[in-house]
């Protein structure tokens, strides 16, 4: 009975999270899969999983969007393996829609950010692929974040 109530409550909480963050998450997933229908399917899958993660997502101090994105990233793990790595000099790795924040980044920052954020690569994998130390990759990623904050 208590599980029943918890599930019923989780339904309303999931709805609240959906109303607030579904659009943001769909935008991210779309840039990964580059297909509207597939992106929607992944979005539905993420929110179907959500009741299992609600406790950690809505706890004080947690960033809901960041947690949602991590769930989506785990779900997209299989898809990440099917897409080609972001290629320096080839702008096709960039998000399909123009984005002012990404355009503030240098090519190198875009490459690292794209491989990590949109291609789901880990720091260690990327370091191996680019033949760079992990510290260097992290540093470039940090600069990419600084670029997001940089005034236009």
């Amino acid at each position, binding site marked *: 009975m208590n599980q*029943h109530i918890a599930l019923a409550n989780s339904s309303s909480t999931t709805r609240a999270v959906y109303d607030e963050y579904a659009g943001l998450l769909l935008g991210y997933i779309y840039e990964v899969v580059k297909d509207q229908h597939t992106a929607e399917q992944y979005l539905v899958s993420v929110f179907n999983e959500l*009741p299992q993660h609600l406790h950690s997502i809505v706890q004080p101090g947690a960033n809901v*969007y960041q947690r949602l*994105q991590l769930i989506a990233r785990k779900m997209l793990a299989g898809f990440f393996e099917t897409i080609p790595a972001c290629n320096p000099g080839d702008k096709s790795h960039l998000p399909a829609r123009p984005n002012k924040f990404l355009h503030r980044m240098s090519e190198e920052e875009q490459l690292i950010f794209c491989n990590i954020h949109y291609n*789901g*690569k*880990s720091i260690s994998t990327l370091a191996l692929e680019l033949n760079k130390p992990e510290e260097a990759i992290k540093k*470039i*990623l940090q600069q990419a974040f600084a670029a997001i904050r940089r005034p236009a």
Partner: protein
Amino acid sequence: MNTKIEKYINSGILEAYVTGAATADEERLVLQLKQQHPEVRRALYRLETDMELLAQSMAILPPPGSWDKIEAEIDALIAHEKPVPQPFSERQQTYNPPPQDNAPGYIDMESESNHIRVHKAWKWVLAAVFILGKIFLGTAIYFYLENRQAQQQIKDLKTEIKALK
């Protein structure tokens, strides 16, 4: 600010954590340091805000049917959710001595119930009595009406005889 923490924040590990690119060990350390150091907490908050800002700029309105699919799935989960059986545990049978007279904590009281308990076999007996009662009632009404009609006929015949005389 603690130099070690400052170095840690500037290493780029927090950015890796926020994007989900850090290892499990690195994630654990980030969460641990987040609890211990407000500087780490603030830096993480800023990075999470950056990610949200980026996401907002690329947001897509979900199609109207998306929530219905999610809701249907959650509703199905609620509908199929069954109570989890409790693991079997043998009740401990302990001897409780009968309460002694004047034992504190017990109050003598009379209980009276408005219900009686009867054997199930009586159900058929009561049903038969009920049906027979109905039959007798019907028969009584029938004979009463017959009798009244006969009385009326006798009365009519008497009137006719008188008229013939």
